[in-house]
């Protein structure tokens, strides 16, 4: 565990979360959410929980992004709020 690396990842994590919530285009929000998943995967791998990081990389950043994009393309693309 390296504290500097931790802090950098956490700052990027908060920024990605805020962007994913505030972007109006839901497709862009899905992409930023994928970035969020990769950052969390990096954080867990760096903390030593490699199994959880592997799950997050495959599920959170890989397949769930595809599922969200498929859903967004079949519904409305603009966020309403």
């Amino acid at each position: 565990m390296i504290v500097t690396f931790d802090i950098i990842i956490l700052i990027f994590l908060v920024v990605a979360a805020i962007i994913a919530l505030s972007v109006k285009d839901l497709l862009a929000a899905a992409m930023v959410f994928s970035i969020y998943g990769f950052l969390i995967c990096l954080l867990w791998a760096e903390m030593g929980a490699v199994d959880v990081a592997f799950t997050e990389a495959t599920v959170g950043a890989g397949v769930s992004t595809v599922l969200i994009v498929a859903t967004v393309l079949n519904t409305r693309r603009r966020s309403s709020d």
Partner: protein
Amino acid sequence: MKAKIFASLSVLITGAILLYAVTDFPDFGDPGSPPNAGVPGGAPSASRYYLENTYRDTKVPNVVTAVLADYRGYDTMFETVVILTAGIAIFAILRVLRRDDAPAAPDPDPARTDHTIDGDHHRIIVGTTCRIAAPLIQIFALYVVAHGHYSPGGGFQGGVMLGASFILLALSGSLRETLTRFSESDYMRMAFIGIVIYAGLGLLPMWVGRNFLDYGALSGLFMTKGEEMARSHSMLGVEIGVAVTVMSIMFAMFANLSTRGRLRGGL
């Protein structure tokens, strides 16, 4: 506007309380903290037991897999059932079995919605690369499943990667072509077969009078020396079951979500 200010205030206050609580946490990786060392005078710690005895009990170096598939096998079985239930729910909500009352797609032009490789030179590059990459992904996924108790990995990760390889084929080529290889009846059957593999391996010890999911009783079936290797081999079987279910459900979710449950056309 007022609602946003109220929401921000409540988030800030909750965050401040949580940050204040963080200062009372034990250090990262502290061996003397209650989860690691147990409460003095109380119950001994479970994690210490796992860390010290997993290799002796099961001959599996990866403690996480041993806890997931052996010590806490009941949890993992019903996690797999949760995934199966999610897939069935998506199937029940979205799948349109009769074509007449299907809701109209956003772009009804079939030439644009159907992903075809033939004659469209833009997609030749992507389609060829994905057809080369999909077997590599599947081989790596099988390695992750089979090697899950020696290195990080296991049934969930390998199953998701196997499903992702089929999703990649459907995204880059055509969903119709992928469905001829991995049809709807196939994936719905395989989703249940995975659960049956898991629960069947759990039921086999009851045959000889042991508990449910007590894999040590299977040493006669697997022809191993002691009960430890039988537990190790059973973990591999259990992970194969999990991988089969997760693979099928991931592809079922994608196929139903991307085509509004009609399984025709593409994204």
